């Protein structure tokens, strides 16, 4: 039978994939996409808990998470474009300006 644990297992696997991508990759855009994968794992977790406990609060938190993800993406991508204009690179190990 389909239970809550299926959804939490899927959520943990997706969160691990996003964390792996965030640590492994050097491209700032791919790091932001990995953040989106982690946020989607959190969305699955909240929606499944909200469904299985018959409480609507989890769906409302999912609504807020999606709005917050839109704001975070706008700010993050504008910062990436700004970094590319200044430094001509988007790789996180080549941005070494603050070392002095």
């Amino acid at each position, binding site marked *: 039978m389909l239970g809550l644990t299926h959804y939490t297992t899927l959520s943990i696997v997706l969160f691990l994939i996003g964390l792996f991508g965030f640590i492994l990759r050097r491209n700032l855009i791919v790091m932001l996409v990995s953040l989106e994968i982690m946020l989607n794992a959190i969305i699955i977790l909240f929606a499944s808990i909200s469904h299985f406990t018959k409480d609507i609060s989890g769906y409302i938190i999912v609504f807020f998470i999606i709005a917050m993800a839109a704001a975070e993406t706008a700010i993050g991508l*504008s910062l990436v474009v700004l970094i590319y204009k200044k430094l001509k690179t988007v790789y996180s190990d080549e941005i070494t300006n603050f070392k002095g």
Partner: protein
Amino acid sequence: MNWDLVIFYYLAFAMVISSILGVLSNNPIYTVLLVLVMIVHQAFLLLTLGSEFLTAIQIIVYAGAILVLFLFVVYLINLRKETTRSIFVRRCSLALIIFLIFFGMFFTNLMLVFRNKPFIQAYLPFNFNEKASDVWWIANYLFKNYLLQFEIIGVILLIAVLGSVFLIRKVKSINN
């Protein structure tokens, strides 16, 4: 045949495989498109959880706005392909601790899945109430109990728009 499990396992494997391929791909355009595949599958997963409104929001906001924003930035920035991968050897112990914590959670969940009875069961046409859809419930709670949070998220979105415009304009004025 148990269609609940078939649909769930199809969606889960499609999401996991597309996100793994997206994270490991060298080309950022392939990454964004594979994550788009993952997000559409996740919208249908939310549909199996009984929320039509969140499915629509997921497709409109994520697939329609956020991923298109990523694609525009990928097209805007002329990238060469990433050839080498950095290996975090010095942070190996920290990574091992984090991996062990998450693997413990994953293994505990998997044990609970393969026991015969999960502690809460689900059936595929999920609804909170037969008389009202989830749009009614979300609107009712959002505008009664969560009104202050709704206003705050509106202000956060306004600040995001103003901040991104301000960041871009400041660089132009310095360059001129």
